[in-house]
């Protein structure tokens, strides 16, 4: 269980030396209790206190870096059950399965798909994060040669080596030395051997059980063998069990501080039907998976899953913003209308969606108003005539359009006169108040 500030205080040197950057030991203890400070800031803490406090101050779900270099992914470290409470921290990794029974050509093709999976969405680069190599053949040689292929063709992609055979795991993991791979497949039968390999090779160990009880016992055992970086699988395959077990694991770790479940969760979502698989993966993305393994990564599926993951992992306390710029919607020409709105993402999405819907090519000027909607930005003095005029002038749009007409949202009709005063030579037209009025408004102008 987490210790209270006073309990932590009792274990500190009580010298009030301020070396930790806090005025008193008690203040430092309070920060430790809230997980806003770390124990190593205190130079004088005793070994005994370190042991007790280290255990108690560890995050409820262990943070693990999977892979190495630029493409490493951080998983775990989650602190809440619901995203509206506080941002979900580390977006779950998506991994595609490659079976070692495939031919070299088929394996190469799948690797290629992973390497070219990157998509840019609202300024973020999203991609398939990892490859899971499964020892479907049961043959050590086949597993090793497939692993070689992956290590040479995709040297930077984090890898999950899935096998229950310690000898196969050991042979393959050596190909990824220093790259923090996951060996997945430690179970009740092979736990010791697998733990030893993971320890020697500095790999993360994937632990799988048939039930939550068995899983708890297994992680305790493996931890006592000296392996601390674990990802855990309750064995759930069906959507109902994935959701139920993921929920139980997350709750146990966060609300009960149940250490045996304080690790990132891995889910296997493979299905024959790719769309069905996408929906099973969606259950994992929304509900507590840290790694999701799928069997195929068609581009349409990647786009949907990446976008869902991005949505779920946005910070609920910070309005999503889009980049300030003038967006072209449809085949906009120099004669197409120019409209303006604020950079609150929802405003942008709704307005651009409706313009798209109208099938009238347009330019949409999106002005940085710190992510506020039109009325709020206006009320806060961030969407004013002088700021709009300055933005339009500085944007260079005057060189791109033949006309000098700006369409403003109906809610800020009051600004039209003063914008015209400040933006010489321009005519300001008042558009509809609600975005859903845009299609009719734009169509009416073209006829």
């Amino acid at each position, binding site marked *: 269980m987490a210790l209270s500030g006073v309990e932590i205080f009792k274990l500190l040197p009580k010298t009030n030396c301020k070396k930790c950057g806090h005025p008193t030991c008690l203040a430092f203890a309070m920060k430790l209790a809230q997980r806003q400070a770390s124990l190593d800031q205190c130079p004088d803490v005793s070994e005994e206190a370190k042991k007790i406090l280290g255990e108690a101050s560890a995050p409820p779900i262990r943070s693990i870096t999977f892979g190495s270099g630029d493409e490493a992914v951080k998983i775990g470290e989650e602190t809440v059950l619901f995203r509206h409470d506080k941002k979900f921290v580390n977006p779950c990794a998506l991994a595609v399965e490659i079976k070692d029974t495939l031919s070299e050509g088929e394996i190469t093709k799948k690797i290629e798909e992973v390497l070219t999976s990157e998509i840019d969405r609202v300024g973020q680069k999203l991609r398939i994060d990892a490859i899971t190599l499964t020892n479907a053949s049961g043959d050590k040689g086949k597993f090793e040669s497939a692993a070689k292929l992956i290590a040479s063709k995709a040297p930077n992609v984090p890898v999950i080596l899935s096998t229950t055979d310690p000898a196969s795991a050991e042979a393959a993991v050596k190909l990824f030395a220093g790259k923090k791979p996951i060996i997945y497949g430690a179970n009740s039968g092979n736990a010791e051997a697998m733990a030893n390999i993971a320890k020697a090779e500095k790999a993360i160990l994937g632990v799988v059980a048939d039930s939550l009880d068995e899983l708890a016992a297994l992680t305790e055992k493996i931890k006592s063998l000296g392996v601390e970086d674990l990802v855990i699988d309750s064995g759930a395959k069906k959507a109902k069990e994935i959701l139920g077990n993921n929920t139980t694991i997350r709750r146990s770790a966060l609300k009960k501080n149940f250490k045996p479940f304080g690790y990132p969760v891995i889910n296997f979502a493979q299905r024959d039907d790719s769309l069905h698989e996408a*929906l099973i993966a969606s259950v994992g993305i929304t509900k507590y998976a840290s790694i999701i393994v799928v069997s195929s990564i068609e581009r349409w599926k990647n786009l*949907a899953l990446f976008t869902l993951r991005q949505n779920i992992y946005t910070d609920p306390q910070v309005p999503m913003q889009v980049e300030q710029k003038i967006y072209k919607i449809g085949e906009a020409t120099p004669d197409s209308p120019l409209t303006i709105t604020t950079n609150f993402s929802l405003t942008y999405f709704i307005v651009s969606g409706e313009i798209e819907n109208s099938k009238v090519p347009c330019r949409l000027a999106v002005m940085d108003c710190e992510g506020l909607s039109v009325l709020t930005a206006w009320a806060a003095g961030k969407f004013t005539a002088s700021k709009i005029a300055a933005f339009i002038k500085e944007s260079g749009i005057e060189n791109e359009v033949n006309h000098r007409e700006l369409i403003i949202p109906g809610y800020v009709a009051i600004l039209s006169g003063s914008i015209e005063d400040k933006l010489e030579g321009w005519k300001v037209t008042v558009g509809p108040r609600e975005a859903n009025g845009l299609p009719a408004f734009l169509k009416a102008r073209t006829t």
Partner: protein
Amino acid sequence: MAFTVPKETYSGKVYNVTIGTGDNVASFGGENVLPFLPFEGTIPNKPLIAYEIQDVPPADWPENVQKPFSSVSGDPVTWAKFCQDTLKAKAIALRLIGTHPDRENRSPEDAAKTVKDVLSAINVPLIILGSNNAEKDAPVLIAAAEAAKDKNCILGKAQEANYKTIAAAAMANNHKLIAMSELDINLSKQLNILITQMGFDKERLITDPMCSALGYGLEYTYSVMERIRLAALTQNDLTMQPPMLADVGMYVWKIKETQAPESDVPLWGNAEERGIAWEATTAAALLMAGAELLIMRHPKAVEAVGKLIEELI
């Protein structure tokens, strides 16, 4: 360390809503637990998916979702029968989009006739939706509610600007009512309170916190829904206990990701599969957030979400 499953205790329960008449009814809601967690409560009904049809041919729908209905969508009655008989729809949502002043501007009488015709052709429950023009919806939905008197339909959507007339029409003609507010738990609660203060039974309400498509603000709808469900279950907040609607199809099928051809955006993959996946994924996420009633368009997306629900129950 011994492991015990940490169970929540919920003091509240979502209202069980039944629509339709006679042997052809459908129920949704009724659970006293967060979505699909039967180990700590009861879930008497599966979420219900209604097929969306409209009173005018769907020329404004992207081609990939027009296609499955191309031979039937010229007429709402044929379209409705196709959904019921061929696609095995459990409910149908008729959107009277043709009544919108910027569209065909059809009269309330026209709308009433369409509702009557559709009702006489099908036996599954019907959801009757206006065109989302707050002013026009009032007379249109009054006429539609009368035309469907005692058929136990869902009428919608009542919004802050027009709820009085629409709620009165639903009450007078024995229908359920959708109350829609814009992505804010407080607005949603307030509208439910205003409607019940008129004497409308809260157990006949359906909350629509407003849907957003995947990638277009889905996270807002997702969190508003999750918060509504938590308020209903853990705080026993009676005003937050009506089942929730996710009006998925219309929001999903107007964005770029469901329309752009693969030739424009090769990195996005096959356009048809992309559109279907977009609708199904949006629906799946909102099911996890607590939606009990979904309105959807593409048969393949409906089928995939149905399959997911089966696996979750």
